[in-house]
């Protein structure tokens, strides 16, 4: 039995064994060109000598004509590229298997056979591709309805299994032609895959990357992906000493749920004492300068410590959050800290965050249920009314355009 990958109800399985293959010889890419190939053109394609297989697990294959001529209700049919599949309409009977012979990679008739069998003849049984079947074809074959792939002798089952996951979203039917909701659903799924890919790429590119988590829903989305994919990205948070207890309660909750350690960085005690002595504990209400000084002591300096020795950091900022974030790039150079900074949720909408939270059932700060949208320190955050700017509840006594704490500085953007 040759090497067969099959899609069962529980997922793909490998059946049969692969023959011993000689070790691969590296290719020599034709970077010097093919020269003048006119004389090499062979326009006539020889027809195949015969079917690629004569037997299946249960015995001999029958051809389409033999099936139609016979009683035609048991055994397995082997279809050839030139066969007219529609002849089987109402005649499939109890066929245990229908196989489609691919004589060469470039002959795509077998894909149409599969489409017609599945969609026109409503065939629900096992549908196998055999012959010139390589790992790089199985994704498209599965999409037209094949659920069994008898791989060409030189093929690797693992490559075929991996190829089954090549594309996450189909580019036909409902997501392209259908209602707005269908595209929105496809976009929502696509955004999650893009996030997974982006974080995977960050983990591959940097050795000491970390997520600066404010324990916001956005950061918990990123944390969830890091944990779900087991990515080597650290997570830390800044406990400013003025956070809501609801926010702080998330730390053990997340650690327990994901089995990961969140490093907690706190402000320098003497710096806090100096601030309180100079401005009072709540001196930030007196002006932007006083407020920014407080942010500097309680957030910016601890962040600097948290990022020391790192080569990249990740934030959960979104463009839609505030006017100050409208041009946010997904990847940028943090000039102040001289490292890469990633904002993988830059183009996410709040609805995307909520959809993710629901789909993956992630822990959420209890304050969201009480009308909070962007959550910072307790004295500096309040709930907002529907329709207000998402960050309207932060430092609500200040102007819109000053509403950053100093963690996210304007920096040179590059990809």
């Amino acid at each position, binding site marked *: 039995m040759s090497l067969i990958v099959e899609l069962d109800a529980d997922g793909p399985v490998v059946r049969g064994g692969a023959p011993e293959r000689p070790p*691969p*010889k*590296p*290719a020599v*890419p*034709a*970077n*010097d*060109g*093919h*020269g*003048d*190939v*006119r004389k090499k*053109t062979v*326009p*006539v*394609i020889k027809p195949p000598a015969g079917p690629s297989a004569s037997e299946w697990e249960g015995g001999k294959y029958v051809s389409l004509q033999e099936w139609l001529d016979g009683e035609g209700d048991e055994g397995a049919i082997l279809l050839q*590229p030139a066969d007219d599949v529609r002849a089987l309409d109402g005649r499939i009977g109890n066929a245990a298997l229908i196989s489609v012979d691919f004589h060469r*990679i*470039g*002959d*795509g*008739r077998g*894909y*149409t056979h599969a*489409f017609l069998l599945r969609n*026109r003849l409503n065939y629900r049984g096992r549908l196998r591709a055999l012959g010139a079947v*390589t790992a*790089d074809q199985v*994704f*498209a*074959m599965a*999409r*037209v309805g094949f659920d069994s792939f008898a791989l060409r002798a*030189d093929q690797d089952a693992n*490559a075929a299994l*991996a*190829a089954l996951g090549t*594309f*996450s*979203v189909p*580019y*036909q*039917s*409902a997501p*392209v*032609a*259908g*209602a*707005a909701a269908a*595209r929105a659903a*496809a*976009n929502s799924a*696509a955004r999650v*895959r*893009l996030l997974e*890919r982006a974080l995977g790429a960050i983990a591959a590119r940097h050795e000491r990357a970390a997520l600066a988590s404010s324990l916001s829903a956005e950061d918990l989305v990123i944390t969830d992906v890091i944990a779900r994919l087991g990515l080597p990205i650290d997570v830390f948070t800044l406990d400013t000493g003025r956070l809501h207890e609801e926010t702080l309660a998330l730390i053990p909750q997340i650690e327990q749920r994901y089995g990961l350690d969140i490093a907690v960085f706190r402000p320098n005690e003497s710096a806090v004492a100096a601030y309180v002595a100079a401005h009072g504990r709540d001196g930030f209400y007196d002006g932007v300068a006083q407020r920014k000084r407080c942010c500097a002591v309680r957030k910016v300096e601890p962040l600097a410590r948290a990022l020391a020795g790192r080569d990249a950091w990740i934030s959960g900022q979104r463009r839609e959050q505030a006017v100050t974030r409208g041009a946010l790039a997904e990847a940028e150079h943090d000039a102040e800290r001289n490292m890469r900074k990633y904002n993988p949720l830059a*183009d996410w909408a709040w609805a995307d965050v909520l959809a993710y939270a629901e789909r993956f059932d992630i822990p959420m700060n209890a304050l969201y249920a009480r009308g909070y949208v962007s959550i910072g320190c307790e004295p500096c955050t309040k709930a907002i009314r529907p329709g207000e700017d998402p960050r309207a509840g932060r430092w609500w006594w200040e102007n819109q355009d000053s509403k950053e704490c100093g963690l996210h500085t304007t920096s040179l953007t590059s*990809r």
Partner: protein
Amino acid sequence: MYRYDAVDRLIVEERVAQYRDQTRRYLAGLIDEDAFRPLRLQNGLYIQRYAPMLRIAIPYGVLSSTQLRKLAGIARRYDRGYGHFTTRQNIQYNWVKVEEVPDILAELATVSMHSIQTSGSCVRNVTTDAFAGLAQDEIVDPRPYCELMRQWSTLHPEFAHLPRKFKVAFNGAKEDRAATSVHDLAFDLYKDEAGDVRLVVKVGGGQGRTPRLASIIKRDLHWSELLTYSEAVLRTYNKLGRRDHIFKSRIKIQVEALGAAEFGRLVDEEWEHLRNGPNTLTEDALDRVAKHFVDPPLEAWSEPPARTLPLDANFRAWKKRNVVAHRHPDYAAVTISLKREGVAPGNATSEEMEFIADLADRYSFSEIRVSYHQNLLLPHVPRARLHELHAELETRNLARANIDLASDIICCPGGDFCSLANAKSIPLSAAIAAKLAPIEEKIGAIQINVSGCINACAHHHVGHIGVLGIDKGGEDWYQVLLGGRADGAGRLGVLTGKAVRQDEVPSIIDRLARHYLAIREDGESFIATVERAGVEAFKAALDARAEIAA
């Protein structure tokens, strides 16, 4: 301009990842040459005569300045600092390395571009009128339909191994500027009495060895049925198209063999099963895409009266030849000629692309178009700023006033690059342009096309004058065709005589042009004169001249 959403982005990113892995396995010896060929081809990678060539899609010819800058950067970093724009609204790099292509594709993905299905036996890049959305004679803006077709046909699982390549074009204007009559599948968009958009469907057009004009198989397809009907056409072709002979495998052969009516009947039979199915376009789907193709914020400008401008002959000639009216009276579409002396037609350097991208930012809402004629367009330029723009273009040898003239030649890369070419096309184009230069203005509009081989990449069959390179005993010889046209219903050119050597071609074309000048009626264009007098009359004139010379 269309902006990728997460679905578009993800598909292109996953495609890059797929091809990166395939390239890795190929280089490691895990994929053999035969299995790798369709994989690289469907990612736009050919192996040419001297190096691999990468073809990148510019869907329906629309580019942003950011995208053009990226193309310029790729040319500089991975190629030799230039790119070649093609008749099918692609750009080609002629000197890439096989192992660097995944990196190029990753860079393209960052600006919403790809090379998916720019070659191979699959549905190719969808093309249309470079003036879409702004042409005064436009009936329906084709771009939303093109984009929907792009999405649906991209990575379609069933139609990636067709008998042969499959080219789709749309036209939504009175004048066909997309050469739809020589496409495998083409659509003319119009509005019915109720104001609904409908399509005339044409199949079986093509050039190459067996040129054929497309046949109409449906006259009143509702826009919502664009994809279901296209699916029926493709499935019919995928099942019936010949696969035993590469020269007989295009859909045109099938349409010719069966007759257009019978082919149409088979399509209808298949279509009956698909109508109202999941690929039926909803209003939502059209709106989602169409909302990207709205006018930029055009403002009322007042053009200074001509007499207040300096008497600048170059500007006047350029304005006459390279500037086309825009739907908005205060704007114009400007063609930047890529047909310069000493430069291969359709080529632009990285510096030129970056310069044009900057001009687009400053003059044309950051938008550029790529035309069938291998030129670039700035689609929305305020008329009041034309003089200023011209002055800037002049500083970079980009202000040649030759659009639609004899030197605006459509030309393939030919034997200088292409491993299929029988003969060189670039130097011949230069020689033709030089020969006709003295009478170019007198001749006026004329389309000359020079292909280096039978594959007809330069569309020589539908040039007013077409030149085809052939191989005769290892030497470059050429046939000259007359009377073709790519617009309207299309017309195929007719051979004017026996093949000649390269040095004879310019004088043959010169004699054809001079015969036109001698017999034309008032205001009659070259092609109109050929059609009135007939190709035979021109052939006779050629023969008479030859006798005198003898």
